[in-house]
């Protein structure tokens, strides 16, 4: 199994690692039994992802997809962030080995979970918007 240079780069130097104090939305997906947990924090201003941070327990691909996903939604509108697919994350990383595709799915789900949490805090039912 070989990772692309981009995956190795995002693993070696992950972008946006950490937490956001008083985050507007926090999403956590995965579980420790399977060996992957992603926790995503977002700060929302004017319907835009003003800041995003993550913490991940998982393999190289889990860390790299978290890092890339945060880069892809930073500064984007919430609607755009919700459009982000695991496929787009994978493409941005120049691909993932087949056994690691689920990591990119987790990254997509982490963003959706954080946005759902944001809507809940706003008193909006996220079901309708996020799905």
């Amino acid at each position, binding site marked *: *199994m070989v990772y692309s240079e981009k995956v*190795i780069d995002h*693993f*070696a130097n*992950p972008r946006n*690692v*950490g937490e956001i104090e008083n985050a507007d939305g926090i999403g*956590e997906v995965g579980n*420790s*039994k*399977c*060996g*992957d*947990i*992603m*926790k995503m924090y977002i700060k929302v201003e004017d319907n835009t992802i003003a800041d995003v941070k993550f*913490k*991940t*327990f*998982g*393999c*190289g*691909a*889990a*860390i790299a997809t978290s890092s890339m996903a945060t880069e892809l939604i930073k500064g984007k509108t919430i609607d755009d962030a919700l459009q982000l697919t695991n496929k787009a994350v994978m493409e941005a990383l120049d691909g993932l080995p087949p*056994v*690691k595709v689920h990591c990119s799915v987790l990254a997509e789900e982490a963003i959706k979970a954080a946005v759902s949490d944001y809507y809940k805090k706003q008193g909006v039912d996220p079901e309708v918007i996020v799905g």
Partner: protein
Amino acid sequence: MREIYADNSATTKLSPVVLEKMLPYLTEVYGNPSSIYRIGGKAREALDQARENIAKNLGAQRANEIYFTSGGSESDNWAIKGVAHAMKKKGKTHIITSKFEHHAVLHTCEALEKEGFEITYLDVYENGLVKPEDVAAAIREDTALVSVMYANNEIGTIQPIPEIGKICRERGVIFHTDAVQAAGYVRINVEEQHIDLLSMTAHKLHGPKGCGLLYVRRGVPIETLIHGGAQERGRRAGTENVAGVIGLDAALELALDGMEERNKRLSSLRDRLMDELLKIERSRVNGDRVHRLPNNVNMCFEGIEGESLLLRLDMNGISASSGSACTSGSLDPSHVLLAIGLPHEIAHGSMRLSFSEETTDEDIDVIAAVVPEVVQYLRNMSPLWEDIKKNERKGQ
């Protein structure tokens, strides 16, 4: 950057001494040992000599009890399927093995289960050791074979093989051991230790890949696995890997030469490193510390995942391995770590280091400095570690 190879249980670097002995059989003496002309005869002679010497080094009574194969997996497959199928004709269809065998044994047993054989998988307990009394208790009238590995490939625990062998001999049950990891680190004597079949491979002891052997005690019923030509006394077809066999013999000879002293030095490096790394909070050594290969360190660090740890170690010049799901290519972490009772989330954070005679004191210093840094780095970005610490605070 200093490069430290610490994955010698995966494979080893070919020894220059071994290579030198092999080279003539890759160049001048290329003849087929089955051929009648001189260049074939020379190859045959070398093959016979190697067989003779290997038999002596394993404590076998006869050279013709050594059968050369392509390596450990083939030897395990042949031993288990070969004996199982031969014994089935005598109405014996029960096999005893342990929960943490190499997949070459476990998957072979699973395949036999589908054919109708019944398999008992022995517990290995928290220390990673099979209890001989469990073997005795599991033996039945219809038991065809007991197969227990000599030393575990992940956690390095050395099994009580002479005791298990004795029990099997007394009860008249055929006993196979996979000694792929033990050979060269443990004094093996198939006669004294009552071993009926033994698998071994060259590439774990600085020999070449693709060559191994199966020791089959005279009189043990075993069916052929590889059909074809009359090589290996008609029991294992295929033109002999002459250079490989020469390499296997040379590697075993080299490993046994000065083994006790090498083991002593390696054990002290191993123990020093384990003690050093145990200072990391929420870390643990997997498997018994005493009945253990001198070159094996296997530890878990809570809150992190093994593959990330390996990648970060690699960035620091250290080659290691892990039993995490991500490195095993499945969703579950290593069956060995689960067999010794580790919960999934802890088993995911495992690291195996395996040394060789080339490993130095300085290498251990570097590893002892790098691992805690990497563990800390990964824990700082781990939500699982955050939860562990939160629960700790709650508990206080």
